[in-house]
């Protein structure tokens, strides 16, 4: 088992389409996290940036970009990229250096400024890049993959478009209570059903938007936290960053095909479930210990897959769990009480950090109307393009 690190502070810049640079959002989130921690920026010994591919060169060196923007003070720097999993990678990079004794206190920041419409691949003629090729040859935008998964669920498990709509209804209700969410209006199933089909069977309101936003955490060693006067801080007790096991038999973005299982039997546990399994194992807990979860609802249907992959219910029973109200606020295991991507839209490198910010607020008992009573253990789950697992266990 790996050692824990303390979360001293969490901060966010509200999600939206603000038309400014990712750096500006990141600085706001970083300052909010530092204020929450009761620390001045010069006290930070390590800054870790989750990169964005949409901010030009400064986006590829996000750690240094944020360090410069906050004012050079000599801290160590690390910048990481892992698509949607960048935030978890940034948290893990900070954790590893704290546990290795290379720093006592670290600032982790992720921020993005997203263009309107579908995400597109990087520019230029790049026939060796599968992400470029899937647009060139198939026009396979991200929601197309979400549509494939959703229809598969309908055929295999009997999920309905009404079930998918109810995920949006649930998450929008929670998001209406979150001042950092971009969409703060409750949504009805009728409104989902009346929205335009984007990738059959999914409609516009089943699919998450792309947003501007930023999230930051101040992490420290448990010793530093004690010296700082925080004797029982919220702690990160696991960060799963696993890759798939060959043969990967689920079609993920930006794949043209799965691996072939002709020579090697597929692993007993699929990729998404293996992400959670690694987090549970590292934290020494299981799904029965959870009080809440934040999962990556890129689409409404995908949230139901995460229920199963986290072990909140058996395979194929995600919709049943939802229908019984277990995953709503007040239910047995509330999921996405932040409002989820349904209410935020995705700000790629910030999102996995934002998931942890929500858990920190919940475990401190400061989530206001969204509070899950007595929450002590939470998990985040997410998956980055090109095979990046991302799951963080937060405990109090």
């Amino acid at each position: 088992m790996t050692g824990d690190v303390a979360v001293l502070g969490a901060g966010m810049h509200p999600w939206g389409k603000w038309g400014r640079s990712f750096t500006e959002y990141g600085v706001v989130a970083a300052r909010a996290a530092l204020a929450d921690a009761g620390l001045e920026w010069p006290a930070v010994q390590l800054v870790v940036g989750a990169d964005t591919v949409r901010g030009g060169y400064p986006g590829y060196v996000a750690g240094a970009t944020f360090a410069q923007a906050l004012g050079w003070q000599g801290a160590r720097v690390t910048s990481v990229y892992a698509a949607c999993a960048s935030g978890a990678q940034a948290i893990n990079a900070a954790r590893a250096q704290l546990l290795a004794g290379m720093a006592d206190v670290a600032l982790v920041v992720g921020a993005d400024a997203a263009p309107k419409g579908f995400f597109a691949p990087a520019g230029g003629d790049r026939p060796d890049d599968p992400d470029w090729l899937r647009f060139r040859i198939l026009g396979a935008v991200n929601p197309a993959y979400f549509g494939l998964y959703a229809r598969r669920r309908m055929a295999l498990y009997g999920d309905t478009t009404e079930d998918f709509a109810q995920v949006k209804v649930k998450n929008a209700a929670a998001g209406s209570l979150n001042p950092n969410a971009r969409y703060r209006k409750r949504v009805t199933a009728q409104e989902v059903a009346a929205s335009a089909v984007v990738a059959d069977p999914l409609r516009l309101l089943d699919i998450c938007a792309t947003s501007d936003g930023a999230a930051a955490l101040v992490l420290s060693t448990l010793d530093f936290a004690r010296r700082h006067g925080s004797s029982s801080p919220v702690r990160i007790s696991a960060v799963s960053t696993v890759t798939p096991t060959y043969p990967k038999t689920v079609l993920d973005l930006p794949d043209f095909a799965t691996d072939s299982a002709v020579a090697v039997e597929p692993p007993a546990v699929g990729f998404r479930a293996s992400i959670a399994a690694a987090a549970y194992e590292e934290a020494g807990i299981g799904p029965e210990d959870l009080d809440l979860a934040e999962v990556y609802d890129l689409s409404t249907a995908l949230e139901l897959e995460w229920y199963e992959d986290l072990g909140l219910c058996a395979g194929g029973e995600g919709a049943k769990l939802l229908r019984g109200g277990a995953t709503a606020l007040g239910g047995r295991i509330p999921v996405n009480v932040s409002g989820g991507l349904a209410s935020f839209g995705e700000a790629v490198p910030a999102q996995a950090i934002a998931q942890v910010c929500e858990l920190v607020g919940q475990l401190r008992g400061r989530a206001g109307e969204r509070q899950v009573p007595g929450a002590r253990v939470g998990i985040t789950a997410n998956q980055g393009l090109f095979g990046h697992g991302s799951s963080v266990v937060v405990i109090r």
Partner: protein
Amino acid sequence: MARERERTPVVDGWFTDDADAPDGFRLLGTRCRSCGSVFFPRQDSHCRNPACGATALEEVPLSPRGRVWSCTDVRYRPPAPYASDPGRPWEPYTLVAVELAAERMVVLGQAAPGVGVADLPVGAEVEVVPGVLAEDEERVWTTWHWRPVEGGAR
């Protein structure tokens, strides 16, 4: 007189030239000579089975038929580099993921024009056929399409 436009595969080496393939049109993958793992898109330098890693792979045509794993459609114009004329109204098309039994893999592709999601229930039998992805002044860009097998199992 209209100039004959050159038929150009949108990507090299992923499917047969529809004009002279002896077994008909096929997707092309590679197979490891050592462990038998199959790869699509083609993997030429080495086998990605972590227990193998051999460097000798041979080109193989993939099964011409498979069953629908799932499908969806693209209702809004994708961004570049997808080729489409922004001056013309967008016409949605269908994407289908096809399970190939012999290769034990799922392969994605566009459905043939006019084939909608209602024509492709999960489990239905489909076959690969030559298709046209886009046309411009110099070229006709060719690709692969999937279409339901007439009288095939549903």
